[in-house]
């Protein structure tokens, strides 16, 4: 894959720098039932050249968290607390206008469904070049040259002839590549990939993940991968934050978290994956379903499904407690978990 033609990466040249720090992020949602807390006190860090996975079921707030970081929340959702520090700037404190300067050069996002995310009425070339036109003031012609380079960079064959095609003339995998190309066009420090492969079949999924990995390595980006796919997390991420009902319940290096889960929810998730179940063991699934936002109980968010639930869980919500070794968990009984 040719890459060299794109300008020198602006992101950090070395890995493991802290690129993004999210602290105590709260997102409130105005709904017919009143104002609800969709994301509650979420904190995490993303490091350059590394992938952080936000893992959780649909509706757990992981996408909302990503959109809050990217400043793309819907009008009904508001960030009501916390900081989102990207490269030294607190994005949450910026006005929408000030944010524009960061969207693209500092932060790119890959959306889930490439067909609807691409504007059907413009050629892919126009859409790929748009970031250059906005942030670098390039002419349409120069932007098109850049667009062709980008298409080549993400592995689209014959970019010169395909640059004038419309999104509907591409296959699903190619469209996803185009989306990724757009996200990395200006070599951002941070790339948020919001379920980038959910709509794709397995082979294409692997190609796309490889592309993301290559790009990360190339430009030392920090990647925040949002997914509900445990296997993908296991394959791709360095660290993971498991979310449940708007809260991060457990976080840490993937290998450790998946190896010895400290939260009953993480444990439950892992138990429900057939590949990880030893022969002869019963395949389990987590009983019940996540609480709806307006019915989140006072105490622990997981109390209704937790096998270890005690009175204290119903009264006091556990906070995310770091263990000092890079892991943290929000459970009153995390130590007991190993013994169950």
């Amino acid at each position, binding site marked *: 894959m040719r890459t060299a033609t794109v300008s020198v990466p602006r992101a950090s040249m070395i890995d493991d720098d802290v690129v993004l720090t999210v602290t105590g992020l709260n997102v409130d949602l105005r709904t017919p039932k009143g104002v609800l807390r969709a994301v509650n006190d979420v904190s995490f860090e993303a490091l350059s050249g590394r992938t952080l996975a936000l893992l959780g079921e649909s509706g757990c707030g992981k996408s909302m968290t990503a959109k809050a970081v*990217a*400043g*793309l929340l819907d*009008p009904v959702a508001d960030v009501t607390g916390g900081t989102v520090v990207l490269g030294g700037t607190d994005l949450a404190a910026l006005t*929408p*206008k000030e944010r*524009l*300067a*960061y*969207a*693209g*050069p500092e*932060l*790119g*996002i890959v*959306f889930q*469904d490439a067909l*609807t*995310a*691409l*504007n*059907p*009425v*413009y*050629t892919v070339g126009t*859409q790929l070049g*748009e*970031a250059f036109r*906005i*942030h670098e003031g390039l002419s349409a012609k120069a932007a098109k040259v850049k667009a062709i380079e980008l298409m080549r960079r993400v592995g689209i*064959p*014959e970019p010169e*002839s*395909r640059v*004038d*095609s*419309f999104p*509907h*003339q*591409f*296959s*699903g*995998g*190619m469209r996803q590549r185009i*989306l990724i190309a*757009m*996200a990395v*066009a200006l070599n951002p420090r941070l790339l948020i990939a919001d379920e980038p492969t959910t709509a794709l*079949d397995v*082979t*294409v999924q692997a190609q796309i993940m490889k592309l993301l990995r290559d790009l990360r390595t190339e430009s030392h980006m920090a990647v925040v991968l949002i997914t509900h796919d445990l296997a993908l997390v296991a394959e791709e991420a360095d660290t993971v934050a498991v979310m449940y009902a708007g809260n991060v319940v457990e976080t840490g290096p993937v290998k450790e978290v998946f190896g010895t889960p400290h939260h009953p929810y993480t444990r439950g998730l892992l138990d429900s994956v057939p590949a990880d179940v030893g022969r002869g063991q019963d395949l389990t699934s987590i009983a019940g379903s996540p609480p709806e936002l307006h019915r989140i109980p006072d105490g622990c968010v997981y109390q209704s499904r937790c096998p270890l639930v005690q009175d204290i869980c119903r009264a006091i919500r556990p906070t995310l407690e770091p263990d000092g070794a890079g892991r943290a968990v929000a459970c009153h009984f995390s130590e007991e978990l190993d013994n169950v």
Partner: protein
Amino acid sequence: MLTFLRRRIVSSALPLLVVVLGVFALARLTGNPASLYLPLNATAEMRANFTAKYGFDDPLLVQMAHYFGGVLRLDFGESLRTGEPAAAMALRAFPATLQLAGTTMLLAVVLAVIVGCWAALKPNGVADRISSFVSMAAASVPDFWLAIMGILVFAITLGWVPTSGVGGATSWILPIATLLLRPFGVLVQIVRGAMVSSLSEPYIKLARSKGASEFRVVTRHALRNAAAPALTVAGDLTVSLVNGAVVVESIFGWPGIGKLMIDSILQRDFAVLQAAVLLTAVSIFILNILIDLGYAGLDARVRPAGRRKKSSRAASVVVAEPKERKIHVQTTP
């Protein structure tokens, strides 16, 4: 594109013929115009002469054959009222209407896009409600009332514009303002609706993620997608303006095709009516083709068959990625 045009022309020729035949037959259902053109105390002989002279006592089919024989020689008959060639009268009146309707629609579209976008940014918000209320109220005032009130207020009381007639720029203000309100009101609703749905599409988020300003998002990304439904409605509204500017044209003394048509109908001036209808029908037909072309220009997905340079490329790409394509097909349940 040429194939498309050819097919469109062929398939529209018949409706045009039907329109003219229909007008021909229906007009003659409204009775012999003799009493309109002869003195009240005209004798039976004068009536008979008149009827025979214009062939109104011939069977309808004979009259039709006669008429279309003339049309083939580009002879559209003469006006009963003025004795002038009917085609000349229609052609003379048409530009006035087209200019009025064209300017009106241009303004209506521009204003409606601005107001519609403004309203769509915050659906159900203050701006939305105000614009919706104002546009609907504006569109629901009878045009003749508005025209006369406009004259009384702006021409007589304030003296800003002339009362009527075709003259300098100021004489266009009242007719256009009167005609403008309905298309504007309707288009605001359409643009607003299309913008609301367009703005909630994922590609808007993508544009924002590239750092596109709100202005760019609205004008470049949302509006272009919202344009198609607005274009259809704008086309229909233009048609009804061309066909329906009768009231405004009569009040302001605007020598347009609408006034010509209603006068011809009421005066049973068949040849002029037929020429005017044929002319408007042809122009509506051209307008519809322009709208189709506009559609294609707006959205590549609806581009008509015939312009296949690009799709051949698309086809080659499918060939270039057979594996991915195949798998995709297999995994679709």
